[in-house]
C-alpha cells in the first residue's frame, strides 16, 4: 500500500486520503472582468505534466486537513508533502522523483 506523509499526522496508508486536484490554482479576484476563454481556462485547464505534479490531498480519515504534495506522475512516488498555504518546494524532477 502507498504510504503518504501527512504534514500533521506523519506517514499514513493511502486509504485514509482523498485526492483534491492540482494545487496552487488561485481563483481570479474579479471573475466578471475575465473573458469566457480565461474563465474556462481557470475552471477546466490543468497542466497535466509528465513528472512532478503539485497537487492537493486531504487526510479525510485522519486529521481532515487539506495539504499539498509533490508527486511524480510517472512513478506515483511522493517526493514531498507540505502544508496548505506554503510555497511549492523548489525541487526539480531529477531529485529523486523516479524511485
Amino acid at each position, binding site marked *: *500500500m502507498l504510504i503518504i506523509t501527512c504534514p*500533521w*499526522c*506523519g506517514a*499514513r496508508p493511502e*486509504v485514509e486520503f482523498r485526492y483534491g486536484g492540482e494545487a496552487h490554482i488561485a481563483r481570479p479576484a474579479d471573475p466578471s472582468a475575465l473573458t469566457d476563454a480565461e474563465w474556462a481556462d481557470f475552471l477546466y485547464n490543468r497542466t497535466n505534466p509528465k513528472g512532478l505534479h503539485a497537487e492537493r490531498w486531504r487526510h479525510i480519515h485522519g*486529521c481532515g*486537513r487539506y495539504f499539498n504534495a509533490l508527486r511524480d506522475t510517472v512513478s506515483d512516488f511522493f517526493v514531498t508533502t507540505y502544508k496548505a498555504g506554503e510555497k511549492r518546494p523548489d525541487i526539480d524532477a531529477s531529485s529523486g522523483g523516479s524511485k
Partner: protein
Amino acid sequence: MVESAAVTASLAPARPLGALAAASRVLPAARLTALGDAARLVFRGREAAIGPAGEAFGVALPREACRFNAGNGRFAFWLGPDEWLLLAPGAEPAPLFAAIEAATAGLPHSLVDVSARSVGIELAGDKAAFVLNQGNPLDLSLDAFPVGMCTRTVFHKAEIVLVRHAPDVFHIDVWRSFAPYVWELLEDARRELA
C-alpha cells in the same frame, strides 16, 4: 389510550451493540466490550479559545498531533490541528456543553454535542493489535502507535477513532450505524484465535 410508560420505553435510545455484545464469546486474548453511554463533544476553535475550553472541560486539550490527555475519568482526543473530541463516560452532555460555552463566550469556536452520534467499543488482550490489523492498515507496534496516541482512521470501510490506553487496550469510537458492521468484523477477526 396508550400507557405513558410504554411510550417512554419505546423512545429509549437504541443500543446498536446490545444483542451482539450479549452473544459475544469470551476470549481472553482479545476481549470485546460494548462501552456505555458517554458525553461526546466536538470542539473546534482558534488559538484563544483552546485554553479556556480545556479548563472548562477539566482536561487540557493536547496540542501535539494524535495524542490525548486524560484526567478525572475524562478524555480530550486530538483529531486535527484545530479539532478535538471531548469524551466524558457516564456524564450528561448538557452541563458540560454549557460550561464550555460559558468559558469560550465571545471567542471564535464551534462546539457540537455529538453524544448520540457514536458508540464506544473496547478491545483488550494480547492479540488486540492483531485483531485490529485485520481491518486497519496502521502500524500498531508500540514504537509507531504508542500508549497515549489517538487518531481517526479506518476499520475496513468504516471510519473510526482509534485510541491506545495501554499496550494491549484499545478504544474504538465508531458512528452508531456502523457499529454492528465494525463489531461483526472484529468478531470475524477474533474467530481465528479460538
